[in-house]
């Protein structure tokens, strides 16, 4: 592979960029209509590619076949084209290719990392895996058995129990309420035909969002795109999922009995959709409420002051059709009631008084100052760009994001706090 003066020019531009040397995003269009967002980084001889499939994911699992989307993801490197599972995996190893899959309720994603010298082979293999999966019967049965035994292992984990029970209530009546990985029973119902159909409808025929980072040029990216997605001739026709508001809690926590010495507590409050202009105010609010483990209200009251828990935190969560705040803490059985009371007191305090100017400033300093730390690898950049594409944040988002945080006002946050914290938190406990 020869180096051209053009490459050196890009590399130079890359280093002269003031805020984010690593964040000059180019949109690359291939002749077949496929597009990708590209960040060139020629410092290391590796390339990272991520592909997200729109309207795929657990929300599209048919009734009684929960876990179908997940099962499909686990089959993608179990045989493609002329290669069975063993041949395919040997090929991936021979070129030291790293292949990964991920999935949430809305989206299946696939990632690949390759050394520059093997990227041609990597793209060929990726193309096979995405376009010609085999779903060989013996591989299907072997993967089925593994998914089921993994699920049974997860059943011993009270955190997993807590999240399943919480979901079922929080999103009752909506596809998001169901277990992403299915259950041993639902996995047993899934046939090879189901897998092929799901793959056709939600992967082969789906719109894709693609990110590329690393030692590759725009021209090479264009070539790769043409190879990866030879045609776009089918329409997915997936039934759209409706938006959903998370349910409030009732008078008492939902208690799930399990013989564990430490009670695991999962709670939630309504949030906002990712596209809501109040999203940034929510991020700031969350940072104060439960974002910093040793500096937030929850962290200070539950852990730092009283030693009741090792973790006590809140997060801003978003999917394409919903947004919420989740809260997690765990404490010994005898103290669970007390910890929940403290949590509820903090909810009430937040509802009544919101946050202070000092808290607002500290949260902003942390959120803006630490932003670039989360972009410290090719994979992190690819994942971030995937979120930017998914939620249509714009190609220049990396440069605008800190301004958005800094623009949040105290009154915005406190108006939002009053709104959100007036809801009754949905609380699920797993323990004795």
């Amino acid at each position: 592979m020869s180096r051209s003066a053009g490459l050196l020019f890009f590399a130079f531009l890359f280093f002269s960029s003031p805020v984010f040397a690593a964040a000059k995003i180019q949109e690359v269009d291939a002749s077949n209509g496929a597009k990708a967002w590209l960040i060139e980084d020629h410092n290391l001889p590796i390339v990272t590619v991520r592909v997200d499939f729109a309207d795929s994911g657990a929300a599209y699992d048919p009734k009684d076949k929960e876990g179908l989307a997940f099962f499909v993801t686990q089959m993608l490197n179990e045989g493609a084209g002329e290669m069975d599972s063993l041949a395919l995996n040997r090929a991936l190893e021979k070129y030291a290719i790293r292949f990964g899959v991920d999935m949430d309720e809305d989206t299946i994603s696939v990632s690949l990392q390759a050394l520059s010298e093997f990227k041609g082979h990597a793209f060929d293999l990726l193309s096979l895996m995405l376009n010609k999966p085999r779903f060989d019967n013996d591989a299907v049965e072997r993967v089925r058995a593994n998914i089921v035994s993994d699920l049974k292992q997860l059943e011993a984990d009270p955190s997993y129990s807590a999240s399943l029970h919480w979901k079922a209530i929080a999103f009752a009546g909506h596809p998001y309420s169901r277990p992403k990985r299915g259950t041993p029973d639902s996995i047993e119902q899934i046939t090879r035909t189901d897998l092929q159909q799901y793959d056709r409808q939600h992967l082969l025929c789906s719109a894709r969002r693609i990110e590329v980072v690393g030692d590759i040029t725009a021209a090479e990216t264009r070539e790769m795109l043409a190879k990866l997605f030879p045609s776009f001739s089918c329409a997915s026709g997936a039934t759209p999922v409706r938006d959903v508001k998370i349910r409030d809690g009732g008078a008492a926590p939902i208690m799930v009995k399990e013989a564990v010495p430490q009670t695991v507590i999962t709670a939630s409050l309504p949030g906002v959709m990712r596209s809501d202009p109040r999203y940034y105010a929510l991020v700031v609010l969350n940072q104060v409420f439960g974002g910093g483990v040793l500096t937030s209200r929850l962290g200070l009251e539950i852990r730092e002051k009283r030693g009741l828990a090792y973790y006590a935190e809140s997060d801003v969560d978003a999917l394409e059709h919903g947004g919420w705040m989740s809260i997690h803490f765990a404490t010994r059985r005898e103290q669970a009631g007390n910890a929940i009371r403290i949590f509820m007191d903090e909810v009430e305090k937040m509802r009544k008084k919101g946050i202070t100017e000092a808290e607002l400033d500290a949260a902003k300093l942390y959120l803006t100052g630490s932003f670039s730390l989360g972009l410290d690898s090719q994979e992190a950049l690819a994942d971030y760009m995937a979120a930017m594409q998914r939620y249509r944040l714009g190609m220049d988002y990396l440069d605008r994001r800190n301004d958005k945080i800094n623009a949040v006002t105290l009154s915005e946050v406190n108006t939002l706090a009053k709104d959100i914290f007036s809801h009754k938190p949905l609380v699920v406990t797993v323990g004795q």
Partner: protein
Amino acid sequence: MTGRQIRLLVFFLGVLILPLTCGAFAADSRQDIETFTLKNGMQVILVPNHRMPIVTHLLLYRVGGADDFPGRSGLAHYNEHMMFQGTKAHGAGEFARIISANGGVFNAFTTRDYTGYYVNIAKEHLSLVMQLEADRMLNLDPDEQHFLKERQVIIEERRMSVENQPEALLAEEMQAMMFRNHPYHNPLIGWMQEMQALSRDDVLSFHRQFYHPANAVLVVTGDITRTELQPLAEKYYGGLPAGTPNVRHWQQEPPQRGPRHITLHNENVKQPELVRYYIAPGASSEDKALMIPEFVLAQLMGGGTTSSMYQSLVVKQKLATSVDFSYNGISVGPAMLEINAVPAVGVSLSQLEAALDKEIAASLVQVGTPDDLERAKILLKADTTYARDSMESMARIIGALVMSGLPVDYFNQWPTLVDAVTADDVHKAAVAVFKPEASVTGYLLPEEGSK
């Protein structure tokens, strides 16, 4: 499926082939790693990466769980927690508050062999970090109530990571059986009764004994040069009284004479599991020359779906749904090879164990084909290139190597060392590790009498 890959020391990477200067691709470049000592003898290691104007500051102390005072298991880890609870100059929570206010992300970790404190932050705040770290290195002084409160926190951590998790309970039992005399037999987090009795005096004695520059190594990765780093390190650390380097007097693990077996029943278990441990050659053992061949062996036999164990037990015989190997060769004390296998429905753990033993016996004759060996080596070598992508990973990896007594440049030597491994070396590695008398086998089962 993309299930569990072999849990080789994740840190482990191979050769560095790429240049730091943009545009030019030299054939055989190594990762730039520099090291120097301060005037008080403290070692500093620098790994430059100029992609973004951020740094990782990782301060490591040559003390870990295996150094806990007798009867005081969990002390090293408790000390790590107390490092955030106040010095004479900065009260409890100040370290966290100041770093966060400067947009930094921090954390700490304790291993059996060493303890590390890291901060990822914009380059311009490096001296602030050094100031705070130098302060808490020597001036730890939390109030009494913070000791009591933080003891509760570590106890909750034990509940979360061990007592709520049947697999972890089994691992804790097996580890205690694996090391009859070596301090590795104690859990890092501590035994519950001992944790409940840990005192302020314990922490302060421990801290006074182990926390000083002679026992510390600083690793800085990211957007920094030696010209920038050295004067800062001299200013904040170089003038501190050195103290004495920690000389370890760990109890030795005597030769092991018989396989041990444990069965753990737990009412929360729905899926039986088989676990096997072997003492293995490692970075500090007499047979340390077999460490890299052990990495190759672990990859060949249990590194994923192409591995010999998976192909035999899962694909051909259908006795298991998964099997994987984990090898922690970069260790100051005795290393260990761990095998985890999940039986297929209708297969008992003793049946699975018998099949596992048959495969192990076969491996003493041959492990894989020449093609298999080549692929395993390619994978191991590539790890280093991939690792260079993350500055935080690089700090952790270099830290792990140096804390385990390996030279600073081991990272760059790795590919050559891996390349040199022959089938005969792998055979020797198998013979060295698969000694039944130096093994523990564990069965994890649902409650007796349940289905």
